């Protein structure tokens, strides 16, 4: 398997679609997607993502998506002791509202002091589109420094500044020298990548280039955990193995980012999120990335813990923890399996995360006949088939007959739900649950992304589903009283991807 090389020479991260062959629209069986991705499976091209046989479908109709700059805001904007400068007209600044809410609630969940997020927008106007906005960027970076004396400043780009060609790298270099702190340009203009997950990579690229310590002093008991704002479940879990946790990127301090290179290994809760940074840390600093199934369900978690035990030389402790944990959850797991028998679930989340959640649902005995991911990466940056999270769920829990890649396209979601009629859906990211609600189907938004992770996660998710099913009352009542914004012609279509196959159908 050809290993993907992370290129840190330029400030611009290579897009996901270029690096990994990412697609945003596809429909079929999960087993076919795994095969065509040719990650661990032998595909047509012989097992390298670059040669995979994955055909993306494309249609004339699309609904609003999400952009990479939003993701940069929710990553770089959420680093404590730092400031994010959005070099953009004021509209991109609207993201501050969402990130502030996530930041505050995330801080509270981790028992950290709650405060407002620190993001400044350079607020470009019409004349700046003509004459350039570099001077305003300088002002705003200076403001960020004068106001907060941060330990790092991130600069995000926007569609406008990319089109007018402002020299953001130049300003970053100038201020890195002037302020003696890392001033990190993050190229993330929305139009540059078809999928927002490039925004994760862009942030991680900047962190790898300019913040991670170049002369690390190894900390053999430190584990990098690449996550979001999730509750602190990794400290007690990895504590059982005598390991300490370094949470990255959201809510981390700049110092926590700097010590990424000193850790014994890197793990994540979702390969979509952790792929780039983990591979980069291994390539540049020799910090091994844990290559195993993700920590979801019994099989996945066992393998994941064992691999951490092996890499950190704590095999015995790992085995003891596995045995203890199985015993701990056994009784409630069996009860939940009985209570959830015959219940049908649907997962609609980011790519690798969906694979993990499906595993947990199946572990709980929930039927999963359909699911969608917002994008699909045929491979991850490590190129290691042990990370083939889609194949893992199929091999251990069976196929998913209706498996779709649909980038937050609510109009398709209607038909996808009708195909399998689930009792509930599991989501992350906004946009789809409101439609499910209008169809009488309750959704669990996994705001705490750790809720389903590892052994306790199986139980947590089971309990969440039981709570959720009670909500059905509200949604079923609503469904009786609202009209959907879609025409009957569309609602009657059996194939939600028909427009990709017969684009002329819209002018008939």
């Amino acid at each position: 398997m050809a290993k993907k090389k992370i290129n840190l020479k330029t400030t611009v991260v290579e897009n996901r679609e270029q690096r990994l062959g990412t697609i945003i629209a596809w429909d079929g069986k999960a087993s076919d997607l795994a095969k065509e991705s040719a990650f661990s499976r032998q595909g047509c091209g012989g097992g390298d993502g670059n040669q995979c046989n994955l055909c993306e479908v494309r249609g004339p109709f699309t609904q609003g998506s999400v952009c990479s700059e939003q993701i940069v805001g929710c990553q770089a904007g959420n680093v404590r002791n730092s400031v994010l400068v959005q070099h953009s007209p004021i509209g991109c600044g609207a993201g501050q509202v969402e990130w502030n809410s996530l930041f505050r609630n995330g801080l509270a969940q981790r028992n950290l002091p709650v405060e407002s997020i620190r993001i400044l927008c350079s607020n470009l106007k019409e004349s700046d589109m003509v004459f350039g906005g570099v001077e305003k960027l300088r002002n705003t970076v200076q403001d960020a420094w004068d106001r907060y004396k941060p330990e790092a400043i991130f600069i995000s780009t926007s569609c406008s500044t990319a089109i007018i060609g402002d020299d953001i790298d130049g300003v970053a270099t100038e201020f890195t020298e002037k302020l003696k702190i890392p001033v990190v340009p993050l190229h993330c203009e929305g139009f540059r990548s078809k999928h927002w997950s490039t925004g994760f990579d862009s942030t991680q690229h900047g962190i790898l280039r300019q913040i991670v310590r170049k002369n690390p002093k190894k900390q053999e008991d430190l584990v990098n955990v690449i996550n979001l704002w999730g509750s602190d479940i990794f400290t007690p879990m990895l504590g059982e193995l005598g390991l300490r946790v370094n949470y990255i990127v959201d809510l981390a301090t700049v110092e926590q980012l700097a010590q990424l290179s000193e850790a014994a290994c890197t793990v994540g809760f979702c390969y979509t999120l952790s792929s780039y940074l983990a591979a980069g840390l291994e390539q540049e600093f020799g910090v091994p990335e844990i290559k195993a199934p993700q920590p979801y369900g019994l099989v996945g978690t066992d393998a994941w813990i064992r691999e951490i035990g092996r890499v950190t030389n704590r095999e015995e402790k790992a085995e003891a923890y596995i045995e203890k944990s199985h015993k701990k959850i056994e009784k409630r797991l069996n009860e939940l399996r009985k209570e959830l028998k015959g219940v049908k679930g649907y997962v609609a989340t980011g790519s690798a995360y969906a694979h993990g959640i499906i595993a947990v649902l199946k572990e709980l005995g929930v039927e999963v006949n359909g699911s969608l991911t917002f994008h699909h990466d045929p491979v991850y940056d490590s190129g290691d088939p042990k990370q083939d999270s889609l194949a893992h769920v199929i091999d251990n829990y069976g196929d998913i007959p209706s498996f779709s890649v649909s980038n937050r396209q609510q109009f398709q979601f209607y038909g996808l739900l009708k195909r399998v009629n689930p009792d509930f859906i599991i989501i992350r990211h906004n946009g789809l649950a409101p439609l499910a609600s209008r169809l009488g189907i309750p959704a669990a938004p996994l705001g705490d992304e750790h809720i389903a992770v590892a052994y306790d996660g199986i139980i947590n998710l089971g309990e969440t589903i039981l709570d959720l099913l009670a909500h059905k009352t509200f949604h079923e009542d609503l469904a009786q009283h609202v009209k959907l914004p879609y025409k009957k012609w569309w609602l009657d279509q059996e194939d939600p991807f028909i427009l990709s196959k017969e684009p002329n159908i819209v002018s008939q």
Partner: protein
Amino acid sequence: MSSINETIKEKTNSISQIRYGCSIGALYTAAAIPGVVPITHCGPGCADKQYLALAFYNGFQGGGYSGGAVPPSVNVSENEVVFGGEDRLRELIESSLKIIDADLFVVLTGCVPDLVGDDVGSVVGEFQDRGVNIVYAETGGFRGNNFTGHELVVKSIIDQYVGNYDGEKEQHSVNVWSLLPFQNTFWRGDLEEIKRVLEGIGLKVNILFGSESEGVSEWKSIPKAQFNLVLSPWLGLETAKHLEKKYNQPFLHIPVVPIGAKETTRFLHEVSDFAGLDKEKVEAFIKKEEKRYYYYLEHFADFYAEWWWGLPAKFAVVGDSAYNLAVTKFLITQLGLIPGKQIITENTPEEYQEAIRNEYKHISDKVSTDVEFIEDGYLILESLRNTDFGHKPPVLFATTWERDVAKELNASIVEIGFPASYEVVLSRSYVGYRGALNLLDKIYTTAISTSA
């Protein structure tokens, strides 16, 4: 976090703790009209950002029929940047007609098509020529904020959809131009109350946005109205002036959105004088409303007079001019609170600022106060920190951004404006006769809930 440098106060171009959306945020002007669906010709994240800021983390109002993830969007990619996005927009509109059930589509442009020079007017024109109900507005984010975008969208619907009219006017009917939908967290309940009291005195009311709007048929009847009512410090004046020219419609401008009986009664008298309404009917309605209002105030007086553990005396208001002025007036003239600091945040066009200042100067017979115009959250924070609120903590009428300074000042905070990320707002209103009582509930529940 390292210590804050206290000396930085000059205004620069920077904006932190944002207080409004950009021009394309006016997709929520379109979405606020029942049956109207926006189509956004912009980057992949623009519509979602405006949604999350304006309609989600601002009272969790929700997208409803045509907001949230519903609006069709081009999701501009590199291809449309290099080769232009007109073909892609054409294809999107064509398929939207087949899939989305709308009475009217409003195409809004973002920064990218405005920069690369897409001729959106001609693409939309092709559909208009076919008789499709569709209009467009150029709302690239660098052109302005969602307040100016709002007036652009309103104008585009009037000029491109409502069209010309030289027929009869309908006596005692009014078009209301007031709070900015979604930006103002409480606009739905408020417009409902405004419509209710205007109908109460005998007007036929085109409220135009929200649950009480009839949608596009109501918009079609705009030209027939006797007059336009601009009920806000400045937003809507552009529209009213345009309608005055276009339909020969006079307008009445009342800058203070009324909260409480005193101000609402005054407001209704002014409107009824302008419209020439039946005085008896007007007075009968006012009497009935005041009776109810003072029934509740009479009972509230026990608490207001006898609560042992202290209530705030001074206040600060931070937010859009409409609510800022309305709330300030109510607090001073109804409750007898003392103004500490008023900061208007929506980037009020300069030509309107003097008139607004004047309103604060003459806020009541006995009290005169001032107002600052600041958009950047950091400077707002500095201004609040440097205000002398006297011997006890004030109550802040502000936004989620002021939660930290509220803690610093040991103050109560009532989130009354964008963004209100710790309020869930359905039909709650703070204006008119009824809304004022809700506001009293909210203020004093907040104030005493910290007492033990």
